[in-house]
């Protein structure tokens, strides 16, 4: 019975939190605006450099350009007022043959970066969900 009660409570908790989520601020603001995004992208680039699986796809990368476009894209995706001047996700990843494992490794790097910057888990999950929704425009192209 205790266990059933706990299960029921967890479900109420989950449903209850859903209403709070509806009133949330923009992800861009939650991530700390432009300054926050810059810190995140810099940390992500550092994580990528320590990740051979992901790094193998970035051998010829112009890191200054990567940083600039990544910032623009993240700003736009998270609800900031920016223009993304880079190529589409499909164009960027065409011919790269990014594997499922490499994609997941990048997600892992992003999670590590957010952990190091102590970004709240809920904020991080909002960003991960956006990245996840672009997966089909990234892998096996």
């Amino acid at each position, binding site marked *: 019975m*205790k266990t059933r009660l706990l299960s029921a409570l967890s479900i109420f908790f989950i449903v209850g939190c859903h209403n709070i989520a509806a009133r949330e601020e923009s992800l861009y603001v939650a991530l700390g605006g432009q300054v926050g995004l810059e810190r995140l992208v810099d940390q992500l680039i550092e994580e990528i450099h320590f990740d051979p699986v992901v790094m193998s796809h970035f051998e010829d990368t112009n890191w200054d350009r990567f940083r600039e476009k990544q910032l623009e894209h993240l700003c736009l995706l998270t609800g900031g007022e920016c223009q993304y001047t880079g190529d589409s996700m499909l164009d960027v990843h065409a011919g790269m043959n990014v594997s499922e494992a490499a994609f997941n490794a990048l997600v892992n790097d992003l999670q590590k970066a957010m952990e190091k910057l102590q970004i709240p888990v809920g904020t991080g999950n909002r960003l991960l969900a956006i990245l996840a929704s672009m997966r089909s425009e990234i892998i096996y192209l």
Partner: protein
Amino acid sequence: MVSVMNSNSFMAVLRRWKFLCRLTIAAISCTVVCSMTHAEGQLLGTAGVGPLEGGSGGGISPWATLAGYATRDEWAATATISKVDVSDFTLNAASVALNYQNRIELSIGRLDIQDKSGGEIIRQNIGGLKVRVLGDLVYDKLPLLSVGLQHKSLIDQDTARAVGAQDTSGTDFYISAARAWLNGPGNRTIFLNVNLRNTEANQLGLLGFGGDRGDRHWLVEGAAAIYFNRHWAIGAEYRQKPDNLSALKEDDWNEVFIAYFPSKSLSFTGAYLELGSIAGQRNQNAWYVSMQAAF
């Protein structure tokens, strides 16, 4: 091989089963799970914890996920050794599982219950096959959908025969669906799994298969978990059970667990189990902790 029963006396059987049950009653059990995995492709925490029946799943039910962290380009192998230690009895579960490209999972396992003082033992072999049919746990439009079977065969068959089971081996079939939402309610990652299982196994098969009150049933199993972050999750599991033996009532099982995933090579799980009525004793509960290591 030690004989489980020294007579056909039903009371002796009942007493024996009560002893066996005691190992799950208010017991602290320690499960040590050692995994060898080739793959690190999947997200942390999506490989499940080591279920009693082998393969990938929670503590008391299999999940639609496949063993280890393999993606479509990889394979993974896991080896699991579990030990549950109570005053009079030991429960040992050992299994190995192979995951081929996140498509096919093969597992072979053994579930033993042993009386420490007498050395008497009930041993059961479990062979499992699970196939991912479609979908993905996290990313696809469709949830992860798998079908599986578990063939269970008692090596020590006297107890099952004595309590009136029809068979000493049997096969479970199940359909399993699982989904994880990265940004679920409350901006937390949540996981849900539902199984439909067709089975005739009494108490996971340790008391044989079928009985005077019936044999095959379609039963429901469910698991839900919420991740506080990618390292910590709490969850609950439910497993509907058959009740085939008029001599020994069998209840549905409930479980709550907390899991810690410091990395893909290590995880710890603690759980509280509510096993209901077993062998005439009501409200039987148990604690267990488990550790999973991957190399």
